[in-house]
């Protein structure tokens, strides 16, 4: 391909209002197939898919770590893992699951769905979006590379000081933790800014805030939580990093440092974080339940308002993780009370979902079953949460398996179940074929049973006094039975995961052998993403829809009779967009996001091992930023012939003409390097 664009004289024109050539080091990548098309993509859908694949891979890692934990704890006094290794394994399990699995999985869905649900062609900053993803991926790989470079972090996922100082954790694990979380933090901050602006600025005409799908709403709130919760942990991580790498004294009690500062800063992030991990799940349930109940969501305004309330209240309860830390009775009282009342908006949601399915006609698809499971399972987790909220009671519960049970019920039973439901629900939209329902139900039941067998007994273990984070226990303590049950449960979950993988594979093969397009709207659904073909065409919408009301797409399909029952007025296939618009001008792929983000882990390695790596990293970073700055966000019209009017059926003559004038070589550019 050409490195130099044919017409270099154009570049020299000092007064050119807008040069027509992209001006990177390399010409822009243009591959539309193969791995390069993924590596340099800025398409929110591809980025969403990459987020999904990456986080599910990390799930396999985090899950395998969980299996190690469970195997070690299956019987008393096991020696499968040494104490040192066990500590690394549970720390990395927590870190992986939270930062590299659940958060990015929601980022995956948010990326893929938000532009579709609000009728946009992409997110507000496509390249920044790619940058977010690569930061996340490289941060995750960086974190996990610690296994090969001296061992993982061993401070627990909340990594309390001063146990995380060099004296008490002399390996490099904690450095990987601080730097790795800083890198993934960049990913989340950038992603948050991007999605907030996408929602605020790129909604289709008529899509007012109160007509946005609940998932969009919850994700929108979530991004604000991220935006404001990440700085405190950034500060904490910086302080710890300076302590460890440069000999600062922030958490050195001998010189007046206060270990509680870490706890406050961490939980100031950590608590909003747990709602960050559940609000989008609430959104997804609110999408899936109505579709399969064939009823609208009950009390949309309440659903939105309670989400906002949870968001706000979520910032006021962080110190409930510190009831035993001795912060003083006044603080304990204040945070105990604020925590109790967060049950109110969450309760509204639970009851509204129950009201949604009340009187509905529940179609028990796999997606629906996973979504329905959230109601009972999350409630169990929420109720144990409320029992923690009572500070005196919590002093008996904190740091026992009762807490472990609580957060797995909310995280796995709440968030992860719905994420799995989300896979079944949106799979046809994303990949253009359905997942097998029968296997899906197997998957559900195995997960459901395995999950309850694993984490249900932990309630009892906790109340019987089993501490968390202990690498083994003794025979006389009475923990044998339930631990064994929990281990069996964990293996059942593992089997269920394999069933899911098999399902993906089998369904894919079946689709390959005998392609059946599920059509734009396989579930008779309600929101905008179902009004376009499956899989989503590259340009999303042929034309940008005009929104009249909540669940606009549904109301185009159905009117209602005098009792208020839906009456079909149009077929989805007829009113759906055809996806055949040509020449839609899309943001162009770019090398720079991946280059810039690749610099970060090198800088981090440099800080840990040898500053030489940091120099290499900063060259990548600085060079990448420069390349990014001088590269226009979209290749000029000549490279991607486009049609700004958006109506594919009225080809824009001038654009085509412009394209025709270009030399053939120019249009068939392939990327270099």
């Amino acid at each position, binding site marked *: *391909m*050409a*490195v*130099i664009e*044919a017409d*270099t*004289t154009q*570049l*020299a024109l000092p007064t050119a209002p807008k040069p027509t050539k992209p*001006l*990177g*080091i*390399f010409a822009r990548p243009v591959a539309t197939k193969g791995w390069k098309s993924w590596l340099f993509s800025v398409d929110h859908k591809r980025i969403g898919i990459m987020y999904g694949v990456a986080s599910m891979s990390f799930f396999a890692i985090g899950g395998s770590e969980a299996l190690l934990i469970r195997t070690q704890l299956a019987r008393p006094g096991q020696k499968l893992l040494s104490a040192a290794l066990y500590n690394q394994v549970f720390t990395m399990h927590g870190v992986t699951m939270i930062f590299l699995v659940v958060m990015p999985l929601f980022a995956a869905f948010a990326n893929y769905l938000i532009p579709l649900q609000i009728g946009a062609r992409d997110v507000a900053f496509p390249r920044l979006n790619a940058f977010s993803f690569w930061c996340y991926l490289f941060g995750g790989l960086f974190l996990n590379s610690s296994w090969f*470079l*001296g061992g993982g972090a061993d401070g627990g996922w909340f990594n309390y000081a001063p146990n995380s*100082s*060099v*004296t008490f954790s*002399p390996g490099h694990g904690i450095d990987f933790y601080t730097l790795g979380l800083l890198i993934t933090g960049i990913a989340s901050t950038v992603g948050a800014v991007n999605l907030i602006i996408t929602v605020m600025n790129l909604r289709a005409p008529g899509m007012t805030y109160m007509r946005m799908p609940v998932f969009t709403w919850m994700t929108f709130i979530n991004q604000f939580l991220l935006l404001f919760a990440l700085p405190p942990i950034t500060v904490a991580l910086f302080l710890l990093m300076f302590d460890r*790498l440069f*000999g600062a*004294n922030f958490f*050195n009690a*001998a*010189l007046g440092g206060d270990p509680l500062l870490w706890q406050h800063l961490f939980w100031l992030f950590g608590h909003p974080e747990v709602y960050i991990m559940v609000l989008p799940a609430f959104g997804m349930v609110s999408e899936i339940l109505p579709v399969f109940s064939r009823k609208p969501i009950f009390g949309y305004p309440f659903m939105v308002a309670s989400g906002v309330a949870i968001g706000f209240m979520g910032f006021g309860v962080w110190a409930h993780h510190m009831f035993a830390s001795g912060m003083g009775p006044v603080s304990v009282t204040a945070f105990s009370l604020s925590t109790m009342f967060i049950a109110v908006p969450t309760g509204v949601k639970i009851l509204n979902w129950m009201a949604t399915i009340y009187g509905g006609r529940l179609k028990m698809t796999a997606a629906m079953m996973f979504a329905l499971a959230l109601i009972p399972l999350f409630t169990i987790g929420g109720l144990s949460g409320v029992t923690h909220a009572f500070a005196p009671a919590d002093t008996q519960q904190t740091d026992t398996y009762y807490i472990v049970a609580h957060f797995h019920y909310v995280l796995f039973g709440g968030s992860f179940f719905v994420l799995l439901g989300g896979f079944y629900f949106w799979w046809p939209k994303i990949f253009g074929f359905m997942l097998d329902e029968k296997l899906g139900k197997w998957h559900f039941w195995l997960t459901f049973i395995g999950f309850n067998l694993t984490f249900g007994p932990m309630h009892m273990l906790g109340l019987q006094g089993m501490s968390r984070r202990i690498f083994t226990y003794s025979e006389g303590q009475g923990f044998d039975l339930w631990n064994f049950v929990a281990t069996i449960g964990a293996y059942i979950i593992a089997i269920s995961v394999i069933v899911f993988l098999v399902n993906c594979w089998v369904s894919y093969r079946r689709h390959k052998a005998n392609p059946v397009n599920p059509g734009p709207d396989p579930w008779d659904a309600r929101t905008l993403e179902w009004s376009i073909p499956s899989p989503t065409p590259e340009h999303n919408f042929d034309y940008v829809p005009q929104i009249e009301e909540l669940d606009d797409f549904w109301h185009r399909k159905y009117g209602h009779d005098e009792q208020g029952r839906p009456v079909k007025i149009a077929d989805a296939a007829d009113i759906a967009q055809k996806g055949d618009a040509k020449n839609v001008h899309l943001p162009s792929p770019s090398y720079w996001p991946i280059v810039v983000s690749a610099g970060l882990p090198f800088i981090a390695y440099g800080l840990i*091992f*040898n500053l030489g790596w940091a120099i290499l990293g900063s*060259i990548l970073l*600085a*060079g*990448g*930023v*420069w*390349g990014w700055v001088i590269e226009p966000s979209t290749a000029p019209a000549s490279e991607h012939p486009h049609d700004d009017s958006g109506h594919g059926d009225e080809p824009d003559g001038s654009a085509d003409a412009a394209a025709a004038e270009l*030399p053939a*070589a120019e249009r068939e550019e392939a990327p*270099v*390097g």
Partner: protein
Amino acid sequence: MITTGSKYFFGLAGAAFIAAVVYGIVTNGVEHGGVVHLLSSDGAVNALLGPITFGYKGGVGDHVGYAILMGFAGGTFGLGVAASAFRDSDAEALAQLDGSEATVVVTPSVMLNAWPFIAGLAATAIVIGLAASPILFLIGCSSLAIVGVEWTIANWAEQRSADAAANRVMRNRLMLPVEVPFGGLFLIGAIVYCFSRVFLAVSKLGAVWVALALAALFFGVAIILNSRPQIRRSLVVGVLVLGAVVVLAVGVAGAVTGPRDFEHHGAQEGAVPAVLTPAVGQEG
């Protein structure tokens, strides 16, 4: 696409890498009772990992030789990437680019080149630095390294095609992303350094006045110029250049003079409680 030229470079890089690893293991083994012993004992993983992880973990024997070989490997690898990225000396690609059937004749340019001169300066700095100051020596070395890279790239770019302008664009595409940010940082660093040296050289109160004067100067000049947009350009440029020279000169003078004496608060020794010695055994 991997071009012929780059294959050569990649080959060299691979060979040098293997050589470096072998060298690292062997020299390491020499220190620890033989390679076989090394590999069979507990340190086997370290002995292998060491060279592969660039000496981070585990042993590398002789570091100098290892670093030279690794450096060579890295350098040739970079050249290989560049060569394949730009399809250097791939006549076909150039032809395709030109849209013509014929291959392009590459004409060497006869442009003036400042690099040799700078290289000379750097060499002088190294020599003087060896004798006089390690800082100068370091400056010399790094300038020489920069010259090496710049000169190579410049030469390479000149051979790209017959079109000098295009060649320049080529060079810029590759080098500007590195030059500009680092140049900018260097510039700011230099200015900031100069300012701070001046503040440090004068007295405590003097520093206040100098800072005030500097700021007033910038602010004032800006206001004056703003109110007189018709001032001749050359004048402005002249003033700017002069200002830069002055800042640099004063800064260097300040650095050479060295900081003022820092008065020591309370010269009497305070009793330091023993318990407050740092409890943290520091290690990197």
